[in-house]
């Protein structure tokens, strides 16, 4: 297992190096990092100083190599606004991880529950209802749902019943002066997590249902029933474990993608996470921030895929042996 993990990690390194150069080159030729200074009345002097300071007069390969050498030794450089990129990324990651953790936890619990029940009670009212809701969830744009949820659960009730404050908040993750896990945090978290999970639950519950149906029709399940095992044992002890395998893969892929940025959710709910950081850096052509974001996301993609493979092996001994 350790050799497997080591091989996977080593194989990722050249990919990351090549990706970093491609992104560096792409951002440099696309954006002008000195754009904001060109409209200054003192543009000539400022631009000359900044060009030298940022090394923009050097060949692109040299610029990339200088950046890469600093990056791997822990110096992630400064943003165009003079902020430390590592601090910015760490802070943004903290916010995004909170959203992802709660989003994935709730999504997994609900998606598995819905998927299993839908499969066990196939063609029931529950199954049809949640099938319909899933399609609506998949089709619904996140930004639209987010704004609707703000209206229905925050602004609407506050105005209708003249409340002192809305039942759920939608700006940031804490009120001013608050911190930690408390009811204020829950009230702030509810709407962004809801916006985040509506599509994920829809997709995952479908995957879980399909996988569960596939497993429930297998011969060994028929054998288990024939042996006289209770339905609950058949479903949860024998079927579910195998039915989780496709969901595990999907979860790993989706979680890695989420780490890259919950751009829409973070924009609407004013959460300063990775997605918002990336969007602002992209608009400004802030190559140091974009590259840091890219590499952090890439690392998480690799780690989550690795985790998926490991969990796969834990769930299915046949894969472990292979």
């Amino acid at each position, binding site marked *: 297992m350790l050799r497997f993990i080591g091989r996977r990690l080593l194989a990722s390194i050249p990919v990351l190096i090549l990706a970093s150069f491609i992104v560096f080159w792409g951002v440099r030729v696309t*954006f*002008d990092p*000195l*754009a*904001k*200074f*060109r*409209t*200054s*009345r*003192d*543009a*000539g*002097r*400022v*631009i000359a*100083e*900044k060009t030298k300071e940022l090394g923009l007069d050097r060949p692109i390969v040299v610029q990339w190599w200088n950046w890469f050498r600093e990056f791997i030794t822990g110096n992630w450089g400064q943003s*165009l*606004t*003079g*902020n430390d990129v590592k601090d*910015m990324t760490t*802070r*943004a990651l903290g*916010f995004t991880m909170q959203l992802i953790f709660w989003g994935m936890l709730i999504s997994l619990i609900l998606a598995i529950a819905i998927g299993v029940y839908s499969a066990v009670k196939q063609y029931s009212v529950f199954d049809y209802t949640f099938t319909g809701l899933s399609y609506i969830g998949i089709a619904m744009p996140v930004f639209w749902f987010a*704004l609707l949820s*703000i*209206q229905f659960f*925050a*602004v609407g009730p*506050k*105005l209708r019943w003249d409340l*002192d*404050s*809305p039942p759920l*908040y*939608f*700006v*940031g993750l804490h*009120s*001013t*002066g*608050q911190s930690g*896990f*408390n*009811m*204020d945090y*829950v009230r702030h978290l509810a709407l962004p997590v809801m916006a985040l999970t509506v599509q994920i639950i829809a997709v995952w519950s479908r995957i879980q249902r399909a996988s569960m149906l596939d497993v429930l029709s297998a011969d060994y399940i028929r054998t288990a029933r024939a042996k006289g095992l209770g339905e609950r044992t058949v479903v949860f002890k024998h079927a579910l474990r195998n039915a989780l395998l496709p969901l595990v893969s999907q979860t790993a892929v989706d979680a890695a993608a989420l780490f890259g940025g919950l751009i829409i959710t*973070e*924009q*609407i*709910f*004013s959460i*300063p996470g990775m997605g*918002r*950081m990336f969007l602002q850096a992209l608009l*400004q*052509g802030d190559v140091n921030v974009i590259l840091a974001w890219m590499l952090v996301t890439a690392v998480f993609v690799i780690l989550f895929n690795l985790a998926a493979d490991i969990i796969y092996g834990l769930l299915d001994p046949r894969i472990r042996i292979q």
Partner: protein
Amino acid sequence: MKTRKGRVAVVALAAGLALIAAACGSDDNKTDNTTATTAASATTAAPTTGGGTGSNAPGSTPAGASGGTITIGVEQEWDCLDYMGSCGGSTYGAWSVLFATSTRPFDFVKDGDTWKYKASNLLTGEPELSTVGGKQTVTYSINPKAVWNDGTPITSTDFKYTWDQVAHGTDIYDTSVFRDVESVDDSDPAKAVFTFSKQNASWKDLFETYGLYPAHLLQGKDRNAAAKDGYPWSAGPFVLEKWDKGVGATLVRNDKYWGDQAKPDKVEMKFFADTAAEFQAFKAGEVDVIGPQPQLDAIDAINAGGLPGKSVVESNTGNVEALWVNNSKAPFDDKIVRQAFAYSIDRDAIVNKLFGGIGVTKAVNSLNPPILKEFSNQDAFAGYKLDKAKVDSLLTGDGWAKGSDGIYAKGGQKLAFELKTTSGNKRRELTAQILQQQLKDAGFEMTINEQKSSDLFGQQLPPGDFQVALYAQTATTLNPGLSTTQSSINIPSPANNNSGTNWTRTNVPGVDDLLATVDTETDDAKRADAAKKADDLLAADMVTLPLDPLPNMGFYGDKISGDFSINVIQGPWWNVADWSIKS
């Protein structure tokens, strides 16, 4: 087995409910951020002061103050708080933090319909303008009560330090404001004497952009490092307590401020990335004030109604959005074509379409913004109204003929051009579309090319790679400065290291001298006369077509009371120190 499992489930449920009850209970004693507190129970925490000499000890709310916290929604987080550094220059940063925590020799006050400079409480009176040894000299007499928040008096050394940093420091965004200052005499702590190397009519702007910096805290230190992430000093009614990047910022009352004490204990800023969410937060009372940009979605939100409190729209702004015409590039290198272009457009109809919902319906008629009406002819371009007959007579007289497609042509060349503007700006997209139709009706063929701001302002406008561009200029002081964009010496060329900002290549005989007078003449009447004449010449030549004033907007919720108005330089919450929270 079932009974045991049932008991376990009940215990687990009870534990969960207990946790939730505990979490609910922990909020009961917290103060909601918009709830008024009485004077005796002010909850201001001791602000963090980096120098360790903070003097704003928590205490009861001063007499006359309402206490409590006012929350402001900020549409754009600033990059840094070192205002003179290259990372500075954020409008919202200035509105939210700079003007609340700094001092300057002049305030911007409204006198009737006009904005003027007025000596602030930093000084004992108006600065003295004189000529010493043939050189222009300005003497500031400092108010003996003026102190920093650590109790240190403000002296002429602070004036000298600030000048020295801008004029000689590294990584300064714009040194031009102090370019003509030759020396500063701080031998008398109560008087700062500035000597200029040449006549400078904009001397009142010297400290308006950056404010004063504290020499006793920064002398010999890295100013940018000390300020960029937030600074502990203040000479204004508030002190910056913290800046939580990406989330918000907090100001607390400066108890050492020598002027009127701020009424609220705290001012909280919350950053918003989405305009719709910003308006929702205002409606829901999560923020008490917002000052959105005049974009279509903001205007839609206003028109949708349901906004609490008071709305203020100010069209008397420092902004001019215009159609900037490249006078050196065909077909607009021909004055006749430029004039025909101007007569092809119904500018009032465009402005009405964009801003009619908020009561702004008339186009601007000067390249000087409305706040500089004293130094401009605000009707200079008023003659350019939609007149297709005039368009036809001008163009046919110039040898153009209308083709079967309704577009004029001359010598086999169609009267076609490209309009460039910034991408991602819905208001400008709509403006471009309306223009395209109006111009087509008049016989022009216009294509639209949207560019990223960085590309447009960085790579296309300076070298003149455009025919017409749609964007705005904003005045940040009350001094006219058209020479930077309209004097021929500022056309980008090797003479100015290609850094000139007369991107339209305007070169109208007589204008350079008039604008030079505006820059150097200290007699306001003479300046105004020269500025108005320059306006008339520029309009006659139709160098560029002004369009709309980009109004400023402010929305003030029901929980606060005060004088709600928009200061054209200092923004919609310029006087937050004077607002109260209704009990």
